[in-house]
């Protein structure tokens, strides 16, 4: 494994490990990985390899050695976390699929270049008969090995990336093609050494050996792969269990302790229990499973509404039930609407919290975002509020209207107040 002696000094991070890049590679990703590691353009490294290749094929050996010893990494080389078995690699959409990749123009050019280089290389060698006898089979063998190895890389990579639809047939085909090439090469060596007359018998023998090996090792291999995948599943389960246990241990037990200590203070107990319940729910029912990035700014409507409700709930100790239909990204106008909604929640909790939980409903329908906040408190009359009390008028109605939305306050027939906020999304958002 090459050490990090040649690291550029601009990078104060701990020494990076050398990985082969699984993205944008032509063959094994060696050149790309090296380039990333050394901080050089890829093309330089590739040229160096080609140059070395012309020097008696040394480049090929070096490349093969790198391919063999350097582990495959994801997304270049700065990936310092060990690739876990559970793929959490969030690849941008439009990533080309692993096995059924269409070679792009660059790759075709590269292949042609390689063929040209190989031909010049073969031509440049003063070949007598014997060398020629070995060369072509050797090339065949190399091609077969490269094919199979590339396949193994793909299989490994597919395990971290969440690629559900691996095309098994294609994988098998590639492997079979590789095996065929290698077999052809190896038998070719023997045949060309002897004469073509032996071809049939050599092929038969080779086939017989292959079948024998398959029969002997096949069941064993199958069992090993099954055991492996089973073991992997168990490990993933154990990991998840440990994560749940840790979470429960950290936060739930903590909260229970606090609740016992504050047993006399009913409001505090209620607040603690609600906060813990919310935390646990976010943790259990978030699609991603980890809803714990409290510090991050919300960037969608649903997150913003939930966040605001949670904060108001914590501060005022009144439960707020949130129902959200649809979702959209936040823009300036919706941000203003969120602030108005938060103000409405605060009012509902302060003045209407006696009547039970505050109900918040947010809905995205086409371009319109509608939010309603209702409480079951005594209700209040907007006109009866002195003009110097700017709370509702400014922070809810004024704010909505300045941003091109509408706000309505109404008394609900059976008691309580409802604030309805409506806003069109900005045009720029899709």
């Amino acid at each position, binding site marked *: 494994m090459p050490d990090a002696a040649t690291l550029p000094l601009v990078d104060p991070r701990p020494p990076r490990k050398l990985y082969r890049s699984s993205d944008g590679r032509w063959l094994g990703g060696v050149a790309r990985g090296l380039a990333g590691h050394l901080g050089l353009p890829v093309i330089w490294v590739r040229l160096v390899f080609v140059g070395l290749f012309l020097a008696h094929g040394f480049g090929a050996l070096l490349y093969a050695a790198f391919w063999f010893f350097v582990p495959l990494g994801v997304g270049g080389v700065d990936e310092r976390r060990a690739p876990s078995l559970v793929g959490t690699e969030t690849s941008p959409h439009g990533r080309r699929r692993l096995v059924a990749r269409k070679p792009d123009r660059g790759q075709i050019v590269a292949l042609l270049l390689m063929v040209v280089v190989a031909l010049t290389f073969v031509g440049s060698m003063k070949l007598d008969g014997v060398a020629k006898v070995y060369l072509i089979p050797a090339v065949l063998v190399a091609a077969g090995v490269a094919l199979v190895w590339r396949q193994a890389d793909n299989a490994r990579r597919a395990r971290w990336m969440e690629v559900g639809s691996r095309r098994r047939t294609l994988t098998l085909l590639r492997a079979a093609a590789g095996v065929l090439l290698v077999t052809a090469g190896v038998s070719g060596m023997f045949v060309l050494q002897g004469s073509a007359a032996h071809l049939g018998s050599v092929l038969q023998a080779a086939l017989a050996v292959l079948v024998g090996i398959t029969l002997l090792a096949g069941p064993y291999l199958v069992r090993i792969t099954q055991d492996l995948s089973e073991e992997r599943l168990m490990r993933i389960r154990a990991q998840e269990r440990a994560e749940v246990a840790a979470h429960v241990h950290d936060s739930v037990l903590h909260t229970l302790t606090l609740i016992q200590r504050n047993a006399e203070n009913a409001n505090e107990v209620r607040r603690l229990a609600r906060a813990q319940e919310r935390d646990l729910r976010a943790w259990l029912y978030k699609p991603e499973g980890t809803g714990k990035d409290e510090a991050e700014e919300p960037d969608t409507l649903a997150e913003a509404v939930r966040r605001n409700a949670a904060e108001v709930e914590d501060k005022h100790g009144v439960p707020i039930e949130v129902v959200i239909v649809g979702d959209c990204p936040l823009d300036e106008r919706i941000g203003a609407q969120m602030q108005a909604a938060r103000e409405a929640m605060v009012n509902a909790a302060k003045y209407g919290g006696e009547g039970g939980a505050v109900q918040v*409903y947010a809905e995205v329908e086409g371009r319109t975002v509608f939010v309603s906040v209702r409480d079951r408190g005594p209700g209040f009359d907007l006109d009866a509020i002195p003009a110097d009390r700017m709370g509702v008028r400014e922070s809810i109605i004024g704010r909505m209207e300045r941003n091109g939305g509408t706000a309505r306050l109404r008394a609900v027939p059976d008691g309580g107040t409802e604030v309805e906020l409506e806003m069109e999304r900005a045009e720029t958002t899709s």
Partner: protein
Amino acid sequence: MSDANGEAAVSGGNADRRVRVVLVDDHRMFRTGVQAEIGQTELTGVEVVGEAADVDQAVAVIIATRPEVVLLDVHLPGGGGVEVLRRCASLTADPEQPVRFLALSVSDAAEDVIGVIRGGARGYVTKTITGSDLIDSIFRVQEGDAVFSPRLAGFVLDAFASTDAPPVDEDLDRLTQREREVLRLIARGYAYKEIAKQLFISVKTVESHVSAVLRKLQLSNRHELTRWATARRLV
């Protein structure tokens, strides 16, 4: 665990209405709490005739006692509430004396909620519901109406949101404008009475809208619904 609470019915308080209920929940503390809140038959009209803590027990108790309403927890050992519904399907469909199910859960997951409704439950409420609301819901389910919590209404609106996919069955895959309005108000925390006032219709009409939505929810083959309903079985 299950001790049939066969008290002699004392006529009084809510004498004109009686409902026989079975509680199915794997948390004993919760069963005790619910029992204490709703089980005083003279006051509430609710008579708890049996309890069960897992799927097998539940099926046995329900067959033995033939209650009118079953309060059913979604998460149960032995296959969950959905399994109880599956095994009691014949009782639910009985025209003479149907057993009706009301799902009760702490879960927030759409597939849990939609799953039990599609399994045949007549409603879904969260466990934070107050005692009096729960009693209301039980009587409503006994009468054959549907009970939607705000959260369930939200899920349904989400599931029936307009998509580009052409509906397979025009009748089942779309909500009418009125149904949508009713669901929205439920999601906003309105009681049926308040919805009736708000839309200038009778409470009965509100109930029939909700029942129609429930039917669509159970029978429609919309992609979202089937996805939610099968999500748990795929895991």
